[in-house]
């Protein structure tokens, strides 16, 4: 039988001297703008949320939060000082000792269910606010961030009256007060990941959102008020690194939970060395997406695209290194380039936007510098040729081929829409390259062979290994890292264990 596909090394059309056939992804059928128009209901100024009320910061200072898609100011956010953080922790301790810690689980569940339902009721409004504050495409905040955040509250509400089954054979007790610091890539979702298990377990919380994306946490505070949660159970303090440090170092919390960069994670761990605080850290990643030659190629390409360009690559588990089996490397590269031609980069509020705005000017600078280093080190760069808006922070989806393990783009976490492609010859080489990193948060394996999936899942040092898919999350599934990607798990029974004491 004749060879049917591009496996064939000689391309008949080309060998006859005709130009290689090409697909045209032009402007024959342009899409009209389709902006999401729901009102995000923003205030012009947000105070700190302490003891159930929005209060002015004792510092008297505010900082602007801007929309990275057009650099316009959205609101002024209170800048917390040490005294504010202290007040928040005191309120949390009082609530934990007098109300929340004493409530039976089934009562706490009612509050969590209420938060989840209120969040669903206001899903569109929250999605728009999330997109405006963070730059992510509306279709992601609408279809992923907000529904998943609600799902985490629902899931943990379900646990709250069944906590005796979290650690069978042991009795458990809440830790008390926990301090939490979350990043800017999934502002509301990370908030839900942190709050829901802590609250279900009977802990009270002081949480600091990232300084560029405080709005949805503060909108969640409105929901917390509406849900009639006892004052002090959840407190939000806003500001940059110093506020985070104050939350982490405060003497009241029995545990601190941090999601963010490995660099900051290390600083926190150093500062807490010697204390008896419990810690969980969910840090950076440099995940390998590994494609074998028998993989379903088009679905693998789609998974790679989803793995690296989801949320502009601002994902700690982003599949930022692509390891391709040599026999299919050329074919995969061609298909990736073709797929990138139909990615739509632009206004995050447009429902057809696939890749939105980079979260901040700072992050854009970091991505630009790392991409420059990739070019300087000799990797071949390809960018999709989409026109970018004049204002705002944008970066074109970028792939590097011909990358080797010693290139900076293959070693450092870029946290942007930049993919580095490496090749391998054998399974052992793939494992070796995938594990040759300081990180170990996630990995992806693409193959039609089941036994190979199981072998890879065993050998890869990563907290999550996705097989023939990527970036799949569920509240019931624990998430967390190996090595410098951190420790502790979030989600599932394992996640709850990190918020309790075994007695």
């Amino acid at each position: 039988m004749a060879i049917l596909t591009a496996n064939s090394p000689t391309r008949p059309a080309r060998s006859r001297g005709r130009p290689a056939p090409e697909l045209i992804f032009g402007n024959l059928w342009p899409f009209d703008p389709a902006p999401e128009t729901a009102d995000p209901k923003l205030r012009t100024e947000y105070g700190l949320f302490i003891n159930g009320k929005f209060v002015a910061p004792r510092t008297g200072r505010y900082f602007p939060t801007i929309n990275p898609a057009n650099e316009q100011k959205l609101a002024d956010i209170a800048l917390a000082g040490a005294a504010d953080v202290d007040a928040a922790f005191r309120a949390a301790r009082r609530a934990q000792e007098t109300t929340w810690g004493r409530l039976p689980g089934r009562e706490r569940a009612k509050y969590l269910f209420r938060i989840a339902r209120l969040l669903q009721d206001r899903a569109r409004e929250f999605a728009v606010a999330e997109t405006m504050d963070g730059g992510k495409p509306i279709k992601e905040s609408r279809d992923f961030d907000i529904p998943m955040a609600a799902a985490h509250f629902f899931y943990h509400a379900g646990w709250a009256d069944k906590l005796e089954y979290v650690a069978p054979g042991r009795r458990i007790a809440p830790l008390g007060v926990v301090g939490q610091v979350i990043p800017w890539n999934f502002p509301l979702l990370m908030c839900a990941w942190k709050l829901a298990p802590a609250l279900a377990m009977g802990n009270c919380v002081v949480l600091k959102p990232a300084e560029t994306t405080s709005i949805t946490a503060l909108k969640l505070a409105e929901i917390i008020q509406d849900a009639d949660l006892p004052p002090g159970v959840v407190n939000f303090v806003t500001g940059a690194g110093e506020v985070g440090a104050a939350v982490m170092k405060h003497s009241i919390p029995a545990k601190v939970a941090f999601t963010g960069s490995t660099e900051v994670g290390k600083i926190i761990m150093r500062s807490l060395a010697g204390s008896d605080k419990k810690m969980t850290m969910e840090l950076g990643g440099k995940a390998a997406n590994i494609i074998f030659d028998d993989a379903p190629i088009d679905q693998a390409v789609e998974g790679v695209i989803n793995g690296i360009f989801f949320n502009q690559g601002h994902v700690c588990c982003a599949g930022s290194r692509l390891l391709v089996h040599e026999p299919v490397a050329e074919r995969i590269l061609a298909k990736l380039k073709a797929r990138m031609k139909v990615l739509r980069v632009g206004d995050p509020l447009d429902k057809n936007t696939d890749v939105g705005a980079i979260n901040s000017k700072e992050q854009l600078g970091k991505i630009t510098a790392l991409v420059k280093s990739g070019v300087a080190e000799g990797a071949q760069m390809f960018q999709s040729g989409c026109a970018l808006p004049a204002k705002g922070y944008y970066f074109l989806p970028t792939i590097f081929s011909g990358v080797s393990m010693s290139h900076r783009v293959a070693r450092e976490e870029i946290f942007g829409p930049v993919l580095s492609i490496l090749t391998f010859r054998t399974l052992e080489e793939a494992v070796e390259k995938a594990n040759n990193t300081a990180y170990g948060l996630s990995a992806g394996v693409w193959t039609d062979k089941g036994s190979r999936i199981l072998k890879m899942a065993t050998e890869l040092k990563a907290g999550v290994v996705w097989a023939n898919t990527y970036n799949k999350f569920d509240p019931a599934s624990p998430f967390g890292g190996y090595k410098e990607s951190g420790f502790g798990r979030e989600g599932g029974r394992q996640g709850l264990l990190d918020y309790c004491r075994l007695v």
Partner: protein
Amino acid sequence: MNAGQSASFRRLFDQVGPVDAVGIEERAAKFTTRSIKKASKLWGLRTAVSMVDLTTLEGKDTPGKVASLCQKAVRPHDDAEIPPVAAVCVYPAMVKHARRALGADAKVRIASVATAFPAGQTRLSTRLSEVHAAVADGADEIDMVINRGAFLAGEFSEVQDEIVAVREACGRAALKVILEVSELETYDNIRAASFLAMEVLRDGDFIKTSTGKTSLNATLGNNQVMLEAIRDFFLNTGRAIAMKPAGGIRTAKQALQFLVAVKETLGDAWLNNRRYRFGASSLLNDLLRQIEKEKTGAYQAPYYFTEAAESY
């Protein structure tokens, strides 16, 4: 199945590669989230009208019914800006009536489902003589069914030989090869069968999802498998095969989603009725209704649209 047959299956799958069902359905679902508004919606709706193979395939078809279908095909609505559909699709016995209704050099083409549609379970000579007769009566396009029994038994050369025989019988008429995806069952099989067919087709011939006579017809999933097969085949050989999803596409919204899949998989060169068709009947009036809605801002009652009978 003997050893040779099972080896031929393995060889074919190795050559064309597998399809992951979950992955391709996720990809297809993304097309449904595209928001098509205003001018782009109108363009899409009009283009979809021009791609319709207006179909009637019933035992109760009469020359009169076919004649009125032809009138509808030429002029779908009062609005003269709305283009005629691509073709009418009828049983072979109705071809001469369609030709009489449309005239000798009509813009609207006549397609006919020859080859013992929909089962194809007659001897090849019978199927071929049906094709000859339909072409002689004036059919511009022949929609054939593949031999699913032979495919599932691993007799791939038999499948291909029959397609070649029908292609020869078509003469200058275009050929549409119906894979009948619901009987092939898996995406792997659909992809493999697409390649088998394309391998022996001419530029501008079609592969088509289904007859519309079984439980499952065109879906975004199997449409996507076939579009990707067409794309891979084109990039490898330079031969542009056209595509026709058929059955199950009843609303304008669905049609736009299928067109988005075409736009983002095969690109601009396939966004016309030489390369893409909809095998449908009730779809046409929904497209017209949506076009009117875009223009006037209000939905019109069904009785403002002709031929709104249930069988459409």
